């Protein structure tokens, strides 16, 4: 797998590089979140990003958020976002402070693939990479798209005040819920729940 390592401590970068290279991963390492975004912009085929939490400038959680917003066009089309692994030396209940605990909690909510505590256990890192090398089930739903369609529908409703538009909004909500259910399910989404663009009065 192609892995991007982000840590401002060269020692940690070298350690991770060596462990991952020994497992035949292709590794690029950078020392800041800004450099990581730049590297990813140039090459959006990284399957995994491993980032430290505490770094000068942008931290690991902000980097995750920026990566989700980035356009990921590859030669094969639109790429899935990378799995992001958070590294932290902050152990909740041991040495972490309130802000660090908040950031780690936020990382969990945002959907980091894994949170690893420093010093990183070699075997745990290897197991994590093996788990992440298995293709993820389902297709990533671009959250922006349903939200944009909801906005369009609500705008149209406000303008038209007609029952037909209300029905279309309801239909759009049902379809988007079906898409999200399909995303969470083990079964692939049903074809009829994947498309059906909403027609607004303005689009007619």
């Amino acid at each position: 797998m192609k892995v991007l390592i982000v840590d401002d401590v060269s020692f940690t970068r070298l350690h991770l590089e060596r462990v991952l290279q020994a497992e035949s991963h292709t590794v690029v390492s950078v020392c800041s979140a800004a450099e990581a975004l730049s590297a990813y912009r140039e090459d959006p085929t990284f399957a995994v990003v491993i980032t430290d939490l505490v770094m000068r400038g942008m931290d690991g959680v902000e980097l995750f958020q920026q990566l989700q917003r980035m356009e990921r066009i590859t030669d094969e089309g639109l790429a899935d976002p990378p799995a992001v692994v958070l590294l932290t030396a902050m152990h909740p209940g041991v040495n972490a402070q309130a802000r660090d605990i908040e950031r780690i909690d936020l990382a969990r909510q945002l959907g980091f693939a894994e949170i690893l505590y420093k010093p990183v256990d070699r075997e745990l890192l290897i197991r994590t990479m093996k788990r992440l090398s298995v293709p993820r089930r389902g297709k990533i739903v671009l959250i922006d798209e349903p939200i944009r369609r909801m906005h369009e529908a609500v705008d149209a409703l406000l303008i038209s005040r007609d029952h037909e538009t209300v029905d279309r909004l309801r239909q759009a909500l049902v379809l988007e819920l079906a898409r999200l259910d399909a995303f969470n399910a083990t079964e692939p989404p049903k074809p009829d729940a994947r498309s059906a663009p909403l027609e607004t009065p303005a689009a007619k």
Partner: protein
Amino acid sequence: MCQTLAELPLRPGGVIDREQLLRTFGDDPPLIAEMITMFQSSSVSLLAEIEAAATAGDAAALSRHAHSLKGTVSMYSRGPARELSLRLELMGSAGMIESANETVVELRDATGILLEELHDLLAMIEGADR
């Protein structure tokens, strides 16, 4: 033939944590040798940055550099160098760095002891490899 880390004799009562080394690097003496060499240089620069931050009264920089040193020291040892860098990190993040200079001196000594033991371990690994 290269000895395994599990076979190498460490200093009795020393600060190196063999189990931690094995968990972090695996039983891979060439990798451990490379990481010790890297630590020998990076710890010197991190200590210098910690000292400079403490002298300048820069609490944020002190916390950040102490955090980095703590992370690297933790790969080898759970001894005083780790505890002292954690103490400096917490001092820095709390903005209470009045007594930081004294702790920096203690940290320098503790890191020196760890470096001595790592130097011996490196010599053993390199000797076993010849």
